């Protein structure tokens, strides 16, 4: 892994390689290990190291972009010259004002190298629980160590090094399955055995699932399901691009109630569990932004381009440039309530518990309407207790309405891999199931 000094030297030489009015370069070095397991054995196992740079060269209001998978100095210089050449052929973008002028940021986490043997040991811990319960195990372990340097000709100079790790485990009987997941900065935080016990319990509890008719049910959404809904809300409209275009559910609604008063959503870069760097792809420090406060729309997130259009400062939410998507909230957090899982279950006379959702897709973005399936642990809850597993069902739900229908929110929250958000469980009224499947 290259040192900060080495990365800065490459970045500085990249800035010197061309004579643009403004120049930006971003360097990434990533080492990733991924171990997948299925049928209770490891079947795919990879180690990958990537060095990459991205550059933007600006001539007046003409912008050329380049990305090259290499940090070789000659190839970096060659790439920057290619971006310069593209800029010369570009048209003016009248909405472009300037690259950001930003204070330097340094974000360095403790990083421990994780070996293939350590990942294999975690899989063995999971498989041991599976075999002990006559179940089959499948899943994945990711370990990622990444370093980034962002520099521009206006003085931005941000450096970061961090790591993150992730485990999914699905344990299966011949007609049911149970899922568990964990994501953290530090791989050593994972207890494969404990994770497997959770998945095992769900798989066994949902054995021989019964069919129930589609309809509206009181439903307990566990954190992976909540994170999936929140990720789609983010995709539709927490960024300034959709907000300014008028296609976001936040457009024209700032200061107005858009969902239930129990719901507060922030982009919380300062939460200790949050992943990634505390600066964005333009090197701008990421601010904490309140998006929805007690059901009322408050703010969206900005990069420098869309911030300039409103005469505002960037909130530090740029993704890799240039891109057609605009800024993105990377550290969503749905604030917790005070209920325990036991309280939430106890309050259900008849309802459904969803472990996770699957293949959620937009049906109507104007209505924040999505559809998808349940998966890997869907249960009927009766008289305050999980009574039996049920066959998977299709749901079709308006996300803002679903959040407004939350009657209890758990105090416990967890970081989720899908969408990278920190979320609690939600107990919601009238969650809308619209179809069924055969298992």
């Amino acid at each position: 892994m290259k040192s900060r000094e080495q990365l800065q030297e490459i970045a500085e030489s990249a800035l010197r390689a061309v004579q643009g009015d403004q120049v930006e370069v971003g360097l990434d070095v990533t080492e990733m290990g991924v171990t997948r397991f299925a049928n209770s054995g490891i079947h795919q196992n990879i180690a990958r190291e990537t060095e990459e740079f991205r550059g933007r060269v600006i001539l007046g209001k003409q912008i050329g972009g380049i990305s090259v998978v290499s940090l070789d100095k000659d190839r970096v210089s060659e790439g920057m010259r290619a971006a310069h050449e593209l800029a010369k052929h570009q048209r003016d973008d009248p909405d472009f004002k300037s690259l950001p002028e930003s204070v330097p940021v340094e974000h360095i986490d403790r990083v421990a190298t994780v070996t293939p043997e350590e990942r294999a040991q975690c899989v063995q811990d999971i498989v041991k629980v599976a075999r002990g319960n006559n179940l089959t195990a499948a899943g994945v372990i990711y370990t990622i160590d990444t370093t980034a340097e962002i520099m521009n000709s206006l003085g931005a100079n941000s450096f970061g090094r961090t790591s993150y790790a992730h485990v999914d485990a699905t344990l299966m009987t011949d007609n049911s399955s149970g899922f568990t997941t964990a994501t953290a900065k530090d791989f050593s935080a994972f207890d494969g055995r404990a994770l497997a016990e959770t998945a095992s319990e769900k798989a066994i509890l949902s054995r021989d699932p019964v069919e129930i008719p589609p309809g509206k049910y009181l439903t307990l959404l566990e954190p992976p399901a909540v994170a999936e809904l929140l990720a789609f809300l983010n995709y539709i409209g927490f960024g300034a691009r959709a907000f300014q275009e008028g296609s976001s559910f936040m457009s024209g609604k700032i200061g107005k109630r858009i969902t239930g008063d129990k719901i507060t959503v922030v982009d919380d870069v300062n939460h200790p569990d949050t992943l990634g760097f505390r600066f964005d792809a333009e090197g701008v420090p990421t601010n904490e932004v309140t998006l929805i406060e007690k059901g009322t729309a408050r703010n969206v997130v900005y990069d420098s381009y869309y911030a300039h259009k409103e005469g505002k400062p960037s909130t530090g939410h740029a993704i890799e440039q240039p891109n057609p998507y605009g800024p993105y909230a990377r550290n969503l957090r749905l604030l917790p309530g005070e209920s325990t899982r036991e309280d939430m279950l106890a309050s259900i006379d008849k309802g459904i518990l969803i472990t996770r959702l699957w293949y959620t897709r937009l049906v109507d973005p104007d209505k924040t309407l999505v559809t998808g399936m349940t998966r890997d642990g869907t249960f009927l809850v009766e008289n305050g207790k999980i009574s039996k597993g049920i066959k998977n069902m299709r749901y079709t739900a308006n996300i803002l309405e679903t959040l407004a229908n939350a009657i209890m929110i758990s105090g416990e929250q967890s970081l989720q891999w899908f969408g990278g958000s920190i979320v609690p469980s939600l107990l919601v009224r009238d969650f809308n199931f619209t179809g069924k499947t055969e298992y």
Partner: protein
Amino acid sequence: MKDLADVALDTLSQQKATYGDIRLIDTFSESIQVKNGNVTVLKRSQERGFGIRVIRNGAWGFAASSDLSRESIQRVALLAVKVAQASSTLKTEDIRLGETEKIVDTYETPVKLDPLAVPIEDKIGLLLEADEGMRGIEGIKIAQSKLNFWKTKKLFASTEGSLIEQEIVESGGGITATSVKNGETGSRTYPGFLGGHYKTMGYEFIDSLAFAENAGRIAEEAVALLVAPEMEETTTTVIVDGPMVAIQIHETVGHPTELDRVFGTEVSLAGTSHLTPDKMGNLRFASQIVNITADATLPGGLGTFGYDDEGTPAQKSYLIREGTFTGYLTSRETAPLIGQNSNGTMRAAGWGHIPLIRMTNVNLEPGDWKLEDLIADTDEGLFIVSPTAPSIDDKRLNYHVSTEVGWRIKNGKLAEMVKRPSYSGISYELWRECDAICSRDEWEIWGVPNCGKGEPMQSMHVAHGASPARFRKVKVGRKK
């Protein structure tokens, strides 16, 4: 490149690997995007790297790097062996690959006009013309257009002696018009397949797309969508266009016939399949007029190549023949488990990924109808075009497709427009109700540049040959 490959293969042989291969890949790409008269993205990329796959102690290992020095290749080959050793501590059984021929060959996409050699100004001009055409229609708030090009050089070398060099060229793009009013939006795309249309062709494909000629039409439809009613929930006859058929094939036939997921190796993300081997040859999956093939040899398809990433030649095979489920997409590891040889579908999304079983060009073979005759032959129903998003369960049974627009069919004629009609049901029940397929005159190979599978996610380029088709008794719309 050959000498670098030898460094890897020599190292693997010294490490007593049962099998090993290396793929050295160099991809140039270009992306141009225009929005509301501004060129918002003008970017070129180059990805160069290698991936080494090895079987040692009966288990797979894989390591990859973007550093192409000889020292790096030797080090990464040893890392791949180390990863395989870690895998072998928890293997289910020893990996065995099906027999293959040693192949030394080259393949190149036939290209008339190198897309990366076409002047940038010409490409920008094409997009700006379409952009103006869309924004010339009152009510259009967002006009977007894009072009994407890839040129990929791949070298595959294995310890079995194969040495294959390929150059694949891909071109494509699309335009989107969006109207916005009072919190409602209406969007239409052209050519109408998930925001773009892509082929293994040169710039001559872009010349054939006629963006500007279609810009005004889709913009008018996008504005009309603002006041179009939604489709009420009902069960009716549905005629879908080629892109809709393509997305149906993708989700309900392509993915469930991937033999790796059938054997459970994609459980942790994509899931499994209801098309288990006991059903092969005897499940009535579709009506008798339905024939679905996987054909990597079709000229121009985004799933067209010379050899897959295991060195198996491109080929054609039947997945559904006269309505019966008859075959899978297979690999050297999975095909022997059903008594077959690989039909050449293993591909990786770049140097840093392992090959997985991926769709090639998975096609609904054409029938003999004309679309206008098909509509005229339908008393009542819905004509639906342009999918936006599919959703399906993890065994590929319960599907749902969201779309851009539909028109009611009344007495054999297109009538009122409806906004974003969706339809859903059980996949084989849909295909069993297919009673008419349009002819080769209306058959097109629709490219999908972003088929997702695997962990880490691999975004693959695949395609589906399809023409419009009719399905009876389809559940459309949703309850108010």
